[in-house]
């Protein structure tokens, strides 16, 4: 079966700057693939090359088996694209805009009207159907952008930072929608928000400074690269404990995330014995103390050589 997306040595140079540097990877059919990298890592440039909006300086990319250098763009009718900041004709209402999107995808007028109504229902925009897009909130625009990308029932959906700028509710709704697509279509989701990628993706491609640093299933990537570590939760004094841990020779890397302390380093056997003693000596109430692997952000920071530009 043809890979929905396949990149082979894909490179883009802007003068001295190399935005994408010999990227080689492929996306499995029916998967939700995360395309991960910090801001400026080359994600959007890569997506633009895939869609034929930018010309590669070297290498090639294939979407549904067709080269992005190909003048024939008919294969893009099976591809939905949600840009980072979807643009609209502000004077249109969503129904008109979706009908327009269907029209440029070659759907007939009746089909456009029917699909526009269906998309408005699915994405909760029916009550806004008659309102001008100019007055829409960021979340409403994002939903309309996704409705536009989905109108022709694409087999491949490409999304550029879909959750960026959304409030927690909008973000949750969008991630749920993406999760529900798994198996039914291939999703290629570019994001620098690693929590989102961890929530919805089953595979991941990581890039840093235009270069591929890792790819594979999410679990494999994390298991392969995450250092052994401990997760510690105290009822109070989290920051005090983190500071104390940083001062210990056996502690390694200390990071704080959502009220938990993550400790990673080579000497976790010793840490396992020392942490309860240290917590107790500080007089802090220990809630939980678990050993286990790290997360995607830890892996990315390790592989990309730090959080430069994150």
């Amino acid at each position, binding site marked *: 079966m043809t890979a929905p997306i396949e990149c082979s040595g894909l490179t883009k140079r802007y003068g001295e700057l190399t935005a994408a540097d010999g990227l080689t990877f492929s996306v499995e059919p029916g998967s939700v693939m995360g395309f991960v990298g910090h801001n400026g890592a080359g994600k959007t440039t890569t997506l*633009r090359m895939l*869609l*034929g*909006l*930018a*010309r590669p300086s070297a290498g090639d990319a294939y979407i549904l088996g067709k080269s992005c250098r190909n*003048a024939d*763009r*008919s*294969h*893009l*009718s099976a*591809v939905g*694209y949600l*840009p980072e*900041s*979807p*643009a*609209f*004709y502000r004077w249109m209402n969503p129904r008109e805009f979706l009908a327009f*999107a269907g029209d*440029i*995808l*070659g759907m007939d007028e009746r089909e456009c009207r029917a699909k526009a109504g269906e998309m408005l229902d699915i994405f909760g925009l029916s009550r806004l159907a008659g309102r001008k897009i100019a007055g829409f909130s960021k979340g409403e625009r994002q939903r309309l952008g996704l409705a*536009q990308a989905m109108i022709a029932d694409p087999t491949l959906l490409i999304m550029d930072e879909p959750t960026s700028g959304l409030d927690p509710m909008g973000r949750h709704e969008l991630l749920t929608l993406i999760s529900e697509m798994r198996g039914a279509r291939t999703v290629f989701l570019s994001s620098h928000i690693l929590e989102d990628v961890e929530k919805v993706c089953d595979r991941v491609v990581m890039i840093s400074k235009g270069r591929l640093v890792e790819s594979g299933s999410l679990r494999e990537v994390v298991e392969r690269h995450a250092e052994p570590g401990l997760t510690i939760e105290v009822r109070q004094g989290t920051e005090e404990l983190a500071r104390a841990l940083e001062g210990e020779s056996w502690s390694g890397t200390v990071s704080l995330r959502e009220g938990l302390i993550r400790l990673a380093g080579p000497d976790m056997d010793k840490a396992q014995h020392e942490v309860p003693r240290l917590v107790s000596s500080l007089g802090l109430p220990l809630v939980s103390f678990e050993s286990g692997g790290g997360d995607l952000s830890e892996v990315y920071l390790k592989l990309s050589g730090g959080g430069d530009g994150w």
Partner: protein
Amino acid sequence: MVVFGFLISALYPSLSKMTAFSQYWEQFPKNLKNLFGGSNVNILTPEGFLTLEYYQMILIIILAAFTLGFTASCIVKARENGTLELILAHPIERWKYTLTSSVSLATALAGLSLLAVATIMAASPVFDMGISFAGQLKLLVILWFMMLALGSISLFASAAFNSTGQVYGLGIGILIASYLINYLGNNWSAFKFIDRAFLYHYYAPYSAMTESGFPWASLLYYALVSVAFTTLAVIVLQRRDISV
């Protein structure tokens, strides 16, 4: 445009009877007359009056403003606001997009040029101007083709440049330079050669309305400019990256 054309036509019966108005125009030095439309223009005739007050400058400014705005919005402005990215991420070939923009411009300009000329034709019997239909028809074609040529240059700029301001700047610059070089060419022979390369040299509304032949040379020049710059616009958009 329609209101202005009608008002100008309404002024003609009164002004044509004012000998002072004619004398005032006759007192102008030849060079100054050329700046406003030509020393050979008889201002007391409806054709001469319309040339000076409507066709030579005001109508061109109105149509040029529309042309530059239209061509800028087709490509460079659409790129700035992201709609071009959205459209070209779909199965639409860029050359088709450029040619569709060009055809839409041609259609819109045909309509506007027709409206401009039809206004004068409608006003002619009302204000007893006796304007010839054949002359207006010739003028309609030349006006349309001149704006098409300007529009094609502007469409090329829209494909090649990165900001709306640059497109407006080039379009306005070309129009002003063309007008001034035509003025210089009409007054000093040293400029005649270079004048032949510019748009205004081939736009002579008074001659179109008063002389019997059809200005084929003008038509050919504008057609060549239009085809050349539309082709360039297609090539440039085909080769460039689309970024917001």
